Every structure is written in C-alpha cells, then in structure tokens.
C-alpha cells in the first residue's frame, strides 16, 4: 500500500498535460485506507479533462468517503503517451488522489456515458493488472463494476465487467459495500469470487452478467436467463425518490488544469418527461425529481464561496423546465454576495422566446452562448421524434435573441431519424437560413452555427427497434445539407463523422457476442475512439469481420415487435408495450404531451416503483407547453389523476 508517485513523476516530463495525473484538486478527499474498509477506485474511462467534471463520479466519491466502511479514490484513462510510458516502465493504473496502484482496491468502478469509451474500459482493466475477461479473474483480483447510462444495455461488456449498477448510484453503493465487505473480511479465499458475485446478483439494481446465460437459436437471441433460482430474471433500476436527500457534490472538485465544464455545477433536477423518443437519458431517468429551490440556492452560494468560480451551471436534461427557474436564476444574478459577477449557464435549453428571456436576465452579468436543439428539420419530423418545437417557437427565440444583442446561435440537429425524407433534411437548412434572416434585421454579423449528428438508436427507447442509417446514407444527407447552405453566408455547418456514428451503433444495441469485437478493437490499439484523431473505422470493420458478425444485422436492421432484445432482462421501469406503442405512434407522426402535466400514460417508471414526479413549485413553467398547445393551468396538482408531488409537501 505505498504511493507510486516516485515512479510516476519521472514520466510526467515526457507527456502532454502532466497535470492530468497529479490530483491535488481543491475538493479532493484525503482517503484513509484500512483493512476493514472497502476500497473503491472510481474510474472515468476517458481523458482527465473529460472525466473530472463528471458529476456522477463526484457524487459517489463524496458519499463513499463519508461512510465509515468505505474509502474511494479516482482514476482516469491515461492518454496514449502516458500509457506507453506506463507499459514500458511497468507502472500500473493508479489513483490520482494518493497515487496508489489499482491492485490496492477492492472495486474498480467505471462510469459509462458513451459507447465509444468501451475499449478504454478494457485498457484500464488491463493496466490495472487484471485479466480483461471476467471469467479469467481470481480472488486476488479486484471486482470490475460499471454504471451510468450505457449500463442500460450491459451486454456488449458482459464478458469484461463483473457487476453493473442499473440506475441511480447513491443508495446502491451501500448495498454493494456490504456484500464486498464480507468478501474482504473473509480473506478472499479460493472459490470466493463466485460466491461474492452470486451475493451481488441478489442486490436490487445490480446485474452480474456471469450469473446469466445467453441462449441463442442460430443468430437469434432467445433469452438471457439466470443461472440460479435466487437471481432475478429481470434487474430493475434503482431510483432515488427525493433528490433533496442527496445534496451532492458538497465539495465539487476544482481542477488545477483546464477541463470541460470548468464551473460550478448544481443539479436542479433529475429525469425528464418531455418524451423525446430518441433520447435515452429522458427515458431511463424518469420520473422528474426536482431539487427544492432553497437547496439549489444554498448549493449555489456555498459552492461559489468555496470554489471561487464565477460561473454556475444549473444542470438537468431540460433546465428551463424547472418549476420556478426564473426565481432561481434571478436570485443568483441579483445576489449581492455574488457582486453581480456570477454567470449562469443553462444547458439543454428549451426552444422558445420565454427561454431567451431567462437568458437575457443572465446576460446582464455575462453573455453566454445560446444553444438550441430542435433536432429535426420539419414539424412532421419533430412530431415523429416527439420534440414538439414549432417553427414559430424557434423564430420567436431567434427574434428575441437577436433583438437583445446576441449575434450567434447554435442549433443542434440529428439526421438519420425514422421516416426521414430528404425534405426533412433540407428543412434543417431552411430553419437555419430563416434564423439568419431574422438576425439580419438586427445585426450584420449573424452566425447560425448548425451542428448535425447522425442518429444512433438507443436501448430502452421507442426507437430501439429502428434500423440505423448506413454511414453512406448519413454522408449523403450531410452532403445534401452542405450543398444547400453553400451560398448561405451566416450558416456555419458542422457535422459528426458518420463512420463514428456507425461504430457507436455497433456497441449501442449489441449483445454478448459484441465482446469479441470490442476486445479485437482494443487489442488492435483502438483506444480513445471518441476522439477523432484516434478513431479508426477500419478497426471496427475488421473486428466485426474477424468475429463473423454482420454490421447490417447489428446496426442497420429494423427489429420486430416480438424480437427478444439483448437488454430485455434489464429494466428502466418502462413497459416494453409502452415503448412499442410509442414507436408505432412515432411512425404515424403522433405526438404525446409531457406527462408531468397530464394524466399518466402508464409508461411504468413511476407506478412500478411507487414513486412520483417531484416538483419544486406548484406553478408550471411559463411557456412550458412547447408547441403542444397543452394548457398547463388545467389539471393542476398535487393530487388528482396527475402523479405529481410538491416537494414542499413532503415530510
């Protein structure tokens, strides 16, 4: 149990950005290891500057270090230059807190937010000195755990990960600690690994792939079934019912070097019921659980005071939907303690003039970028994906923004959506062009930066049955757009590499057989695949061919209603027939309203767990109907048929 620092430091002069490896952040814990404490090494399998701000990891880092029976440190994927030196000098994966070897820990727990990091997970496990395949591990090896959004289809990583956490991690880490603690106390004897995994498989929200068999009939998956009667057939996600009980992180890490999202982050709610059909996050994190406005204010003011940041981001999946967002924003902007110098950023803004109103309140302090995500180019397309933004909402937002002094707007779109025609694609150009025209009335220097991503169907969403566009088709659509806006000065078009979209599609809806592919890509040197300078589509194509698997079958094929999906035994609470009906509704371009303000659609996310939406104020957000024409003044809550609970009414 000694620090590897004397062996790490000589490497730092030879690598880019050595501050990635030193720790020392403000907010870093001083973990004290002990034989009776379960030691967690929390890993973000991407570069430090991407991983450090991750709130999920930071929340667990604090919770685990507060407990008397656990200790937690952090690690991030070493960049390729550092990895080469570590392998050359035989330096194992280490924590950045006390620079301990991974082998000093009982669990190596990964946060998975994107599929293209899967090969980095294998690389980190290998650097930790642990066999990458779970079946080859013995009692001397730590347990490899993973959680985060990608865990909702754990199968592509089933060969490598000992246990997955499905859903919110705040509570389940205690249950896991209990089981692992007994294992640790028992001295991890021969054969004990199977027993601890069996024990973990019984913890609600924990999925242990080795306790399940995947059964095939030819190419077709028939079932994934438990190997023991006391292991659940279906693993239901964990959900914390009240965000107010978890005011974390209390001591957000303040990095010493440049990272993404380098500001105070305060989560104002979790979950979203807008019902955008492409959005996995919105589907798997239901119901809506808002933090009380007092707690938001306290977390903001204490956080700013402690960190010295001059910017706070109020995070959620749709921040303008927070009940009472105006009061919270106004409270921060006008707080005398903040000396009128604190910027507020609201990621994931809804598209309407009301939202721009909030943004202009914020701009009194500091003008930040305005980013909107209409996602689809035509109203028909947006009804299919249930992102119910009307053209007049977007143009209203543009008018409001440019008349108040903004000169740029960012718009995000997807191509390759179900039922999409070339007219829908060209609609993107039309929207961008009209926004430029609106801007020109106010200023000559208008830029509408228009980003286009390729759509990857995600598990546990209504679009999970849809066959993804080929990279050739996506490229054709991008070219169509590029040609359409060629003469439009003011429209700056950017697009995501369609080949990377294809690779993401392989991992997104794969089954256990994908393990061979991921291992192949990793062994061929394919790490940091979400970085364009490291991504190589040939690695993925070669790996699929070498494994005898068809890209067409995994990525581009439409699925039938009765097909067993590789993630059917993992549940986000959503009924499969709800998702199928919503998929059929999508094909008819039928819209569904936000269920926060309407009677329940019985998707399963609330009723199955005996929980409800929790809102911070009894007034729905102004402008919240977002094109649905929904009257939010009616069908009010609490009580009645709308399962919404006011946070103030909770005991």
């Amino acid at each position, binding site marked *: 149990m000694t620090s590897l620092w004397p062996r790490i430091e000589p490497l730092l002069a030879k690598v880019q950005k050595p501050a990635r490896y030193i720790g020392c952040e403000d907010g870093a814990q001083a973990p004290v290891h002990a034989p009776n404490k379960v030691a967690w090494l929390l890993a973000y399998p991407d570069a430090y500057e991407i991983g450090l701000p991750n709130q999920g990891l930071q929340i667990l880092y604090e919770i685990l270090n507060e407990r008397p029976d656990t200790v937690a440190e952090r690690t991030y994927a070493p960049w390729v230059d550092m990895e080469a030196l570590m392998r050359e000098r035989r330096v194992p994966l280490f924590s950045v807190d006390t620079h301990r070897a991974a082998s000093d820990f009982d669990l190596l727990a990964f946060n998975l937010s994107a599929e293209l990091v899967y090969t980095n997970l294998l690389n980190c496990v290998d650097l930790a000195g642990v066999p990458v395949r779970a079946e080859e591990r013995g009692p001397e090896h730590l347990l490899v755990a993973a959680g985060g959004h990608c865990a909702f289809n754990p199968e592509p990583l089933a060969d490598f990960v000992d246990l997955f956490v499905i859903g919110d991690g705040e509570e389940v880490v205690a249950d896991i600690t209990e089981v692992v603690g007994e294992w640790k106390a028992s001295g991890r004897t021969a054969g004990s690994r199977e027993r601890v995994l069996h024990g973990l498989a019984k913890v609600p929200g924990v999925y242990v792939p080795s306790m399940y068999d995947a059964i095939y009939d030819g190419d077709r998956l028939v079932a994934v079934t438990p190997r023991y009667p006391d292991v659940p057939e279906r693993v239901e996600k964990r959900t914390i019912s009240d965000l107010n009980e978890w005011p974390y992180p209390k001591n957000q890490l303040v990095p*010493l070097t440049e990272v993404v999202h380098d500001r105070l982050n305060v989560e104002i709610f979790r979950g979203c019921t807008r019902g955008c059909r492409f959005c996995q996050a919105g589907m798997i994190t239901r119901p809506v659980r808002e933090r009380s406005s007092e707690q938001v204010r306290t977390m903001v003011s204490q956080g700013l005071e*402690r960190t010295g940041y001059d910017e706070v981001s109020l995070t959620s999946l749709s921040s303008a939907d927070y009940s009472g967002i105006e009061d919270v924003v106004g409270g921060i902007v006008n707080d005398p303690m903040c000396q009128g110098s604190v910027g507020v950023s609201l990621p994931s803004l809804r598209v309407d003039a009301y939202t721009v109103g909030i943004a202009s309140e914020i701009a009194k302090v500091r003008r930040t970028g305005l980013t909107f995500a209409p996602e689809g180019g035509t109203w028909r397309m947006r009804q299919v994906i249930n992102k119910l933004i009307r053209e007049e909402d977007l143009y209203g937002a543009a008018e409001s923004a440019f008349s108040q002094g903004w000169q740029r707007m960012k718009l995000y779109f997807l191509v390759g959506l179900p039922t999409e025609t070339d007219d829908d694609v060209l609609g993107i150009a039309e929207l961008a062009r009209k926004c430029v025209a609106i801007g020109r009335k106010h200023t000559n220097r208008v830029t509408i930066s228009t980003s286009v991503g390729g759509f990857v169907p995600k598990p546990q969403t209504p679009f999970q049955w849809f066959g993804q566009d080929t990279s050739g088709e996506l490229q054709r659509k991008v070219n169509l757009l590029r040609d359409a806006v060629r003469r439009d000065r003011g429209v700056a078009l950017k697009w995501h590499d369609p080949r990377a979209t294809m690779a993401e599609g392989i991992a997104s809806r794969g089954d256990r057989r994908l393990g061979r592919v991921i291992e192949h890509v990793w062994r061929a040197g394919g790490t940091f695949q979400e970085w364009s300078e490291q991504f190589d589509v040939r690695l993925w194509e070669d790996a699929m061919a070498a494994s005898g698997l068809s890209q067409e079958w995994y990525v581009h094929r439409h699925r039938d209603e009765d097909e067993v999906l590789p993630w059917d035994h993992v549940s986000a609470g959503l009924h499969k027939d709800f998702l199928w009906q919503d998929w059929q509704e999508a094909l008819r371009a039928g819209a569904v309203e936000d269920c926060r303000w309407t009677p329940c659609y019985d998707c399963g996310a609330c009723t199955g767990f005996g929980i409800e939406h929790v809102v911070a104020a009894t007034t729905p957000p102004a402008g919240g109907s977002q094109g649905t024409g929904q009257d939010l003044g009616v069908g009010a809550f609490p009580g009645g048929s709308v399962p919404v609970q006011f946070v103030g009414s909770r005991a």
Partner: protein
Amino acid sequence: MKVRLRYSKLGKIRWTSHRDMARMWERAFRRTHLPLAYSHGFSPRPKVSFGLALPTGGESLGEYLDVEVAPEAAGDVDVAALPGRLSTALPVGVEVAAAAVIDDRTPSLQHEVTSCGWTVRVDGMAHEELRELASAAVSAPQLLLARERKGHTTTEDVRPGILSCTAEDEGTLQCELATQPRALRPSELLRALRPDLEAALVRRTHQWIERDGARVEPLALLLDAMGARHAHGRAS
C-alpha cells in the same frame, strides 16, 4: 493601488502550467473577496500581471505577481495580512511569502527582470563530469544552439545568456541565466552543456533586477510589509 506578491510553487503542483496558475489566482482572489480592479469591456477580467512564465514541471521559490486593487477599496485592504489569506485560498504547494504596495508607475515584471537564478538537478551523472561540463561552458567563447522561435529554428550564441553556472552539490547545477533580450531556459542550458542532458528537477530560486550595476529582487523576502509600502519609491 498596485500590490506585488511573491510566492513559491513546490511539489506536485509544479506540473501545472503558467495558464493553469493564472486560473488558480483568479479563483483565489474571488475566494478571498479581494476587491480587484477589473478591465472594462465585453468580458471584464481582473487586472493581474504575471511575471516570467515558469516552465511546466519547474518549481520556484521566487515567483511574482502584480495585482491592481480597485481604487475605492484601496484603503480597506490589509496588505500585511494578504500572504496568509491568499495562501489558504491557493492549492497546496503554492505559498505566498510576501506582499507590498508598489508604485503605480513601476514597470512590469516581464520588462524589469533581467536574470533568474536556477537550481537544476541532473540525475545519473558523476559530479566530476558535471563540473567539467559547467566550467567548459562558462569558459567557452561562444555556445551555438539551435533554438525554436515562433515556429522556426535559428542558431544562436547562448553563451552571453549564461551569467554563471557551477556544479555545487552532487548532480546539481546552480546557475544564473539572463532573461533579456530573450530568456534562456534551463533546458536550453543543459542542451548547450551536452545535447542529451535532461533535468530531473528545475527550481527557480530568484528573479533579479539589475539596476545601476547592483542586483535587487522585485520584492525582498523578509520585508516588513508596512515598512515596505514604498519599497520601490527609489526606483521610480
């Protein structure tokens, strides 16, 4: 009112860059609610002027920073208490050693500092050998070195930039390198001594201002902050 701060940077934090340090300082000023003067314009920034950049990986006992306090708050700032207040708001390894008010017309550190003292540790080398390399360099009439500048390489005589260089303790060089007209880096000194030499640790010990043939530090270390209120009065 301008305040000059002297601080050290030691330990793991040496792996942060000059830009990283600038961000740390801005956060520390906000945490301590020091009423700084801000630039006007689109994105107001505190008026802070950093001295010569320390190479990433280098330690220092003598770093400097000039900050401008908002004129209306100048009377409220207890300069003597600043080192303690700021040190607690800065990361472990950064310690403020002294603070003093300087004349508003004091030239910038980058402009004024003429040389820096360095300790350079070279591992895996016999002491005798290092001593010979050092004395050979000092007695050479010229030392040509390929240096990179704004993307292209030029060959320059770096000998005038080496004001002194001796091998003191085992594997350690003490040297003073000029910063004008162009700063000579310790890594360049090592390359001039022998192309394959690499530093195990570089530590800046001093920054010097040459004035009328004498060397003075931008802010002497053991100054009584009150008595030093006009420490630079003579210079202006």
